[in-house]
């Protein structure tokens, strides 16, 4: 029997949200994952090994998955009395593929906002430059706060089958992050015709105009593959906060910054002129169907 590729999950500065997101994966897919890979260590899940033993044994790790931001500051963060930056440096030398799971591991995420700790960053930035150059495969960033469980599984299964995965300029797998959160949103028709949600708590209208939705400028497949297999935030009425982009978290995330009544930022790659022209045209029509309730009051 061929041995299964070994996976080690390191938890750094984190809320464990990516672990819980992974556990929400489709149960058949998750079981396939557990059967296809050998998860030798996960601090919340496994019982038969501890991290320092794994490091001391110099065992070869095929996939090093890191959840959480990295810091060298042991005043604020240590694992088994070591800095997580030091542990990461050791583990990187033992590992073939390095995958940052979530926005914190990818670029520091929310924890970068803790200013008393001057050294918080993502995995890639924390690895010694010389070591980084020698890696057989570039560090893979799976941004998202949290990451969607499928993004982990898709990446792992592609790497297992192909040995490599194409990355974008943020080191994210191109295929996963090629589409926008906006794609597949059930509110798309309201976006096309510039019909806004007047307030929170409605089934109708687009959240881009008032509620701060970042769907049209955020790369992710949230509305393509759905969350928990049933829904997405924007479908439910919760604006996208752009958590897969490296400028997350921003200020005033639940409202749209506007300039003379028009969203200050236009959809990705669409010029202001193009956007204003289309908006002007769309707004000259009053489409009653889009201005009435989807389900009439009884």
């Amino acid at each position, binding site marked *: 029997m061929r041995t299964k590729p070994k996976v080690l999950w390191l938890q750094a500065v984190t809320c*464990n949200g990516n672990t819980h997101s992974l556990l*929400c994966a489709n149960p058949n897919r998750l079981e396939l994952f557990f059967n296809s890979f050998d998860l030798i260590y996960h601090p*919340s899940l496994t019982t038969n090994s501890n991290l320092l033993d794994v490091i001391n044994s110099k065992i070869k790790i095929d996939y090093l998955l890191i959840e959480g931001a990295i810091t060298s500051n042991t005043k604020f963060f240590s694992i088994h009395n070591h800095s997580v930056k030091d542990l990461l440096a050791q583990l990187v030398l033992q590992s073939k593929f390095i995958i940052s799971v979530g926005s914190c591991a990818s670029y520091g995420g*929310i924890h970068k906002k803790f200013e008393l700790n001057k050294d918080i960053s993502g995995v890639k930035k924390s690895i010694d430059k010389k070591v980084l150059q020698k890696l057989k495969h570039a560090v893979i960033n799976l941004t998202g706060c949290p990451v969607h469980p499928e993004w982990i599984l898709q990446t792992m299964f592609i790497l297992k089958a192909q040995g490599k995965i194409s990355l974008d300029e943020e080191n994210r797998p191109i295929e996963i992050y090629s589409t926008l959160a906006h794609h597949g949103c059930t509110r798309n028709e309201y976006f096309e015709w510039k019909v806004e949600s007047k307030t*929170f708590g409605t089934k109708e209208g687009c959240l881009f105009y008032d509620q701060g939705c970042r769907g049209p400028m955020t790369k992710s497949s949230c509305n393509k593959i759905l969350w*928990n297999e*049933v829904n997405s935030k924007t479908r*439910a009425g919760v604006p996208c906060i752009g958590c897969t982009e490296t400028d997350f978290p921003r200020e005033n995330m639940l409202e749209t910054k506007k300039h003379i009544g028009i969203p200050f930022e236009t959809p990705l790659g669409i010029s202001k002129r193009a956007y204003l022209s289309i908006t002007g045209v769309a707004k000259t029509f009053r489409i009653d169907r889009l201005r009435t309730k989807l389900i009439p009051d009884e």
Partner: protein
Amino acid sequence: MKTVDIIERIEGEAHLKLDWKDGIVSNSQIKFLNFRGFEYILEGKPALDALVYTPRICGICGQAHLLAAVNALENIYENANIKLEVTQKAKLLRELGLAIEIIDSHIKWFYMFIMPDIVSLSSSDYSQYNPLKGSKWLRANHKAGEVLKALAIIGGQWPHTSYMVPGGVMSDPTLIDIATIENYIDQTIMYYEDNIIGESLDNYLSFNSVSSIDNLKADLGDFSKISFENNLNNIGRSYDRHLVISDMLGFKSGKLKHINTSKININKIKEFDEYTFNAKAKKQQAKKYTWAKTVKYDNDFYETGPLSRALVNNRKFIKAIHKEFKDSAYTRVMARMDELGFLLNKCKKIIRSINISEDSFIKPEIKLKDIESATAYGSVEAARGALLHTVEIQNGKIKKYDVTTPTVWNLGPGDDVTPGVAQKAINGSTTTKEAKIILRSFDVCSVCTTH
């Protein structure tokens, strides 16, 4: 002799330092060495952004933090005498989300964090409980994921949605959504009946004596059997003082100290940092050993969480178990799993009370941004117990934010004279394994404890 053990398989990491005298733990320290500074991060941020930041304090109880933040922000309106209307429907949809998240947390905690330690005490074959591969472990994770789908229907996703907002909720479920949510709850009830209690939920909820423990068949039966073989019903006792700070999910606020009283005064909650590291200090004083703070109510240590909720609210089965075995590690675990049944039943009632024709959200007359200054608090009963957020805003921005988590009540350090709740429970242990199980019985969440 002193020993230090690193505790994993909790949410995060903790160090358990034990002082031994004649083979018995004479003193203990629970050290949480990781600090992420959420209260510092929130300073200067727009008030509404707290709805994005606070759920990210914890990957497993983010909705409790979200609701505490929303309650605190709504309390700002109240304190400023600004009218704010929240419909019954919105309140129910918030409670439902919180209840579902607690259900998920209790299931995962039992199978992922407690049972691996419990079955290791037995020489019988309990390999079905093995992590990642055992059928019971996999089924538990599957079913926890299923019930979270019900939360995703109203929140869009789990973890980390911000669907609750001052004025209501952001989603507007249809009747199909409500029926689907009820389907997921019903499936979870079937799972609870068949796999956890081995009894119908209705029958189970009528249990009122300690002899009913013998009727438990399924996995809670396994747990009880191993617990009695290993004396878990006699270890882990603490002060047996209990605190519930919020009225929600069918829980009533109150405290139990010799007698049960329903009056709670939030102003009597005080935090101390005698043993707590100082984030701004270059060098820590020798006395300081953890990032967790100390918290007291009316100058006493109180336990919080499912056991406290069951006792303060007179839930019969747990009352009976408690009468016999006091606040033992066994009672604590049973209370948590009993609460799972209580909440599943409560979810059914919540779902049936939702009137979808009400508004989901009513826009507050004034934006938080336009409120000059205010201080407010919001409280919640979270999976692990009493959660309190206190916020001070100035010109719409957060000036100060303070989070007191359930795990601070249970796992925070004591004072110079008296040990904290979990310390007191651990002292007197005869083995490290015993001490660890007692610690686990409080449902340790290090990310919440230090935030």
